[in-house]
């Protein structure tokens, strides 16, 4: 039944996260923007206790399931295709609350939000492609000890949207039963935090057969402080400067055989079934990026509306468009684009929470939200005039932060392509 009701526990959670945003993020936004490679310590210290609880809650049903299967009960088992995610019964409130959390944290500061001590994209990849046992094994480390980070490494200098061009290799060493990774990965969010500054993990996509294209690609879990992994470069960016973005170099980095994500079949070197499972990561990560975009958009929109109100400019919603000033129309347009993109994001999220496929809707929300936040923040700087352009306020930073949402987790154009193929029923060959 169609409903827009937000569960009360999420409303409560939002209040708490807003407090985190106001106390541990906003006061440090400018400082971290101007000192690019400093870490958001206050934010990490404040959120680590919460994220540990979140991961514990998420793992609990999995552990029960594994135990039941071990005792010979007929559990939900594997859905094949490299994805071992159990079929959902009821509603996955965890996913829903995570999306709302991302939105509110990004309202606080999108760069700092990306430094959340949490499995993050690495976790999404483990959840999408890993078996229940793998999920418990890799994600349990996020429930104890010192703060840890998760990352995912796909992009290479020669392989952006075209991940079939990937050159990073994984070769099984039969003597030690280890995968040996070699290659270069770039634009890795939290790469240094996950692998050098904590005992976290990074899911690395690599090919077991460079001649096989996409079919040879599998995803591998590289854990923190693995020998042979080095930071090749720390990036300097337009925005989200608080976020750790690095290039990783793999030089005979050895990881255990069991660290390839997927079931027994996927784990075989000759299997060509790893890619589909790995791609499922995006069905979860795209709504997450959209939610982050929406958080920035809301920050910029609320701030603009507040400052305009101080100047005596407010929108009278009973007036027809032709009686509104240009500025009032712009504000209305901001609100419309923000709300539309947020509703698309909530739809893709609700589909996940209800255990439905959402590939088309995930791409739709991702590209609309990226588009919306880019326009809204650019408009905010414009409407705020010289004060908007000044580094005294955060509007100009939000505009720089916003643009990444048009780019990462698939550029707008790649997501349009996915939507186009889906609505036309076309293959990659028919619509290039």
């Amino acid at each position: 039944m169609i409903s827009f009701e937000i569960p009360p526990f999420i409303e409560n959670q939002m209040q708490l996260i807003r407090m985190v945003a106001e106390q541990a993020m906003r006061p440090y936004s400018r400082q971290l923007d101007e000192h690019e490679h400093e870490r958001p310590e206050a934010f990490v210290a404040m959120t680590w206790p919460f994220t540990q609880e979140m991961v514990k809650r998420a793992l609990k049903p999995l552990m029960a399931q594994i135990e039941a299967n071990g005792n010979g009960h007929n559990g939900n088992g594997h859905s094949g295709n490299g994805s071992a995610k159990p079929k959902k019964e009821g509603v996955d409130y965890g996913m829903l609350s995570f999306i709302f959390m991302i939105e509110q944290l990004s309202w606080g500061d999108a760069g700092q939000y990306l430094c959340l001590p949490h499995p993050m994209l690495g976790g999404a990849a483990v959840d999408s492609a890993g078996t229940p046992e793998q999920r418990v094994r890799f994600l349990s480390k996020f429930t104890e000890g010192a703060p840890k980070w998760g990352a995912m490494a796909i992009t290479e200098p020669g392989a952006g949207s075209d991940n079939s061009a990937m050159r990073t290799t994984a070769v099984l060493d039969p003597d030690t039963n280890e995968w040996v990774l070699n290659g270069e990965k770039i634009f890795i969010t939290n790469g240094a935090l996950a692998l050098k500054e904590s005992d976290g993990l990074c899911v690395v996509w690599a090919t077991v057969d460079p001649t096989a294209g996409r079919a040879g690609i599998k995803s591998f879990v590289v854990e923190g402080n693995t020998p042979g992994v080095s930071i090749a470069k720390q990036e300097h960016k337009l925005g989200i400067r608080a976020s750790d973005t690095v290039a990783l170099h793999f030089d005979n980095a050895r990881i255990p055989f069991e660290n390839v994500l997927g079931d027994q079949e996927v784990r075989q070197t000759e299997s060509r079934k790893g890619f589909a499972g790995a791609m499922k990561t995006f069905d979860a990560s795209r709504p997450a990026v959209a939610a982050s975009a929406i958080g920035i958009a809301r920050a910029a929109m609320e701030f603009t509306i507040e400052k305009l109100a101080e100047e005596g400019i407010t929108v009278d919603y009973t007036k027809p468009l032709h009686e509104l000033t240009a500025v009032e129309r712009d504000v209305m347009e901001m609100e419309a684009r923000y709300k539309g993109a947020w509703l698309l994001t909530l739809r893709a999220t609700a589909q996940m929470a209800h255990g439905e496929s959402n590939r088309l809707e995930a791409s739709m929300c991702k590209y609309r939200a990226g588009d919306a936040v880019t326009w809204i923040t650019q408009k905010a700087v414009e409407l705020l005039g010289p004060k908007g352009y000044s580094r005294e306020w955060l509007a100009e930073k939000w505009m720089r932060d916003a643009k990444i949402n048009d780019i990462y987790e698939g550029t707008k154009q790649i997501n349009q392509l996915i939507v186009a193929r889906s609505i036309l029923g076309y293959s990659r060959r028919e619509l290039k």
Partner: protein
Amino acid sequence: MLDFRPDEEQKMLTETIARFARERVRKVYREAEEDGAIPAATARAGWEIGLLPTAVPEAYGGFGDYSVVTGALAMEEFGWGDLAVTFNVMTPNLLAIPLMLCGTEEQKADYLPLFTQEAPPKVTAALTEPVVQFNPYKLKATAVRDGNAYVLNGRKTLVPLADEAETILVYAAENGVTQAFIVPTGVDGLTIDARDKLMGVRALSTNLITLTDVRIPAANKLGGEAGIDFSLILNHSRVALAAAAVGLARAGFEYARDYAKQRVQFGEPIAHRQSIAFMLADMATEIDEARLLVWETAWQLDQGKDVTREAAIMKHQVDRMVMQVADRAVQTLGGYGYIREYPVELWLRNARGFTTFDGLAII
């Protein structure tokens, strides 16, 4: 809990209307547009789907099953079929829904049973005025209290089915505030003038009307002494129109998509090109976004919220979306898009109306 899936009853209803739209409306709509008349049997079949009798409270002979969300789902399917037929079928709503929302007990008892009959009652409403910059909150038509009567003056346009109407709900400003008055068409001073000559929805008969010192009993003021919550009525109208716009846009998108897949140029379907495919992707995404805005506003209305702000934002976005999508549908068909043998030019003309149609449909 957040959920974007219609329930079983809603699915049955939308399937019924979709069948009506596909098998009845789409068979006649182009000829109706050219002739300027909707076949009576088509309009009657639309009424017989029974939306309004279902919505009227049980106390007045209906089933009391009224939901704006369900209404929005219905309007999208009607809108997909044809806008002129939609407005024709929905004309009785223009009195029934304001009565349900704002009528006094006596007014409801007098009029609501009319809407549970086999045949549609001959009623309509007059909101829009023939001016350049129309604002429904600042009407030029006036209502002045004179003892136990009201005296109405003014001109109205876009009054659907006015030529057959027995009762018109006339909106007019009383001391600058928009109110509504139940006016029998036989009353002195009311004239049904020329039929409107419109850019689109040409199958629908709408008229100009003039009120010159029309006297009606004070009891005919909708809502009694207290009057109406005009925003509430207007917001219901905006949801209905926006939902119809989503249906119209979907029709345009589907037609353009199917055309692009079969139209071959340079040895392959034009949909194989990103310039066409991306246009279609944008259309599909914007339609989905607009639908969600409509559903959310409808849902808030069902929760009893004041959605004046939400409805304004929704209207802003949906009005622009439907224009854009209809325009791109014509563009996708190229030269054929401009030819009246194809439906997309009609949808472009109809789409342009949504910025003007306030009050022409209500759910």
